């Protein structure tokens, strides 16, 4: 099973981290992994998080392949704003 390496950036963090995601991995799992990677510097609990590519929020039920994430693409994890669905 090949892995897709991604450049991950978490709102509130001071650096980017590498995320290795399986192609059939759900976006929800990518979010959880990215939260864990940033946890030494960012308080993760108490927030809901959205994963964005190019400003668009990804469906957490989709997969890495389904979301067409390309190797070494930038992904951003942002706290869900009040009022957002």
């Amino acid at each position, binding site marked *: 099973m090949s892995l897709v390496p991604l450049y991950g950036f978490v709102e509130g963090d001071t650096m980017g981290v590498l995320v290795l995601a399986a192609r059939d991995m759900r976006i929800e799992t990518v979010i959880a992994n990215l939260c864990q990677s940033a946890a*030494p510097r960012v308080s993760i609990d108490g927030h809901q998080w959205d994963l964005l590519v190019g400003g668009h929020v990804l469906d957490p039920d989709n997969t890495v392949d389904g979301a067409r994430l390309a190797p070494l693409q*930038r992904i951003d994890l942002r706290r869900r704003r009040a009022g957002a669905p």
Partner: protein
Amino acid sequence: MFPEALSGTPWLPHEDWAGWDEPFKTKFEDYVVGQDDKERGVTAVAALLGRAKHMARLDPGWLAATKLHAATLPLAEFAAVVGNLRATRFARDGAWRTMSTLGALDELRHTQVPLEVLHPLLKVDRQFDWAHRFYHTNNWVAIAARHAFDELLMCADPIELAIGTNFVFETGFTNLQFIGLASLAEGADDRLFEAMVTSIQTDEARHAQIGRPVLEIVARHDPERAQYLVDKWFWRSWQLFAVVTGLAMDYLTPFARRGPSFREFVQEWVAEQFLGALERLGLKRPWYWEIFEKSVANYHHMIYASAYSYRASVWFDFVLPGPRERAWLRRKYPESFPAFEPVWDRITETWAQTDPGIDFAAHGKAIPTFCSLCQLVLSHGTPEHNEARVTMHNGEPRVFCNEPCQWIFEREPERYGAHKDIVARVLAGEAPANLIEFLRTYSALAYDEWGKDAYAGVYPWLVRTPEANR
């Protein structure tokens, strides 16, 4: 006699270099006498203080700053010997070649003095071994430093060397380390460090003068290239000094001994003096000046927090900023530091729930990411928005920590394109993805050398939770 490939671009007729002049008119005999005096001065201070006893008296944070200096600068100075010797042969004017000869001797001294003073301290602290070892490792900071210094000092032609090193690096930035940090060394009671860098600075002030007349002539005949070399090396120099001097001034200098902030030093030495020198030569401030000003308020804070959480990946220790340090940083950086408070709250909270000395409980475990140009961690921007950008070059994705790094890469892709950053090495199977393996085998760090919290996470202001002390 002077092929363009070795003497540099623009290749101008000999008469265009006539009149090359600098203010120091030094004879070799005077040079030798002066250098001998300086050597005696540093040796006397070292003998008086007794190195190991002196070191034992220093604050742990300041000691970490000296280890950062000891590793990153002495062997970079040795690379500058090579660059100066190339100019000794291929620079286009006789006076320039003579000054470069003395410059090469200066840089040899700047290698030997800190190695002589600092490396023997490995007998009592193995982290000082990195004074010699740093540039011979694949430590991520060493990869970044080599990427800049190999280009600037080992490979550049005499024109690029003079503009990039003598003008930009030495007149623009070394004052931060050799005067600014030296003044903090005095406050930190490190008379030996102060004597050492002050002695070196007197040489720097002389051979830095090579840069202005070279830039003046290039600006007259090829202003676009002059501006490009200034813009390129200003950015690359800034990144290195933000890491080396920024961390030392704003985080590792003991609180009671701090003076001006890193930004205030930058404002005085870089923004005012260097810009004034550029204007006198008819050149413009670098096109990314607004980005630079924003990064002066943010970049070293981003790097310090990131490096603190990956401290085992370097050879010096870190200090956790406490309430009074954070109040000082808020006062010095009112518009930017508040965004870093949650990061330090989080790290402090983790230490509070952890037993003293268990560094890996408050440590990153994911693979960090690095810029395709500067090879430093992707830490430009703010905690709210990281400025990294991914772009395609020859069908391959490249990541840059900011716009100026991307701009430099795209101006000379043939120069930079083949270099692999650490992520590329990991993905190619050339470096281990497991952090401990990465530290031990690839970064050449043993447990007793790698960076830790300087106080093992024990601070008078940090209250441990009952669970942590059970």
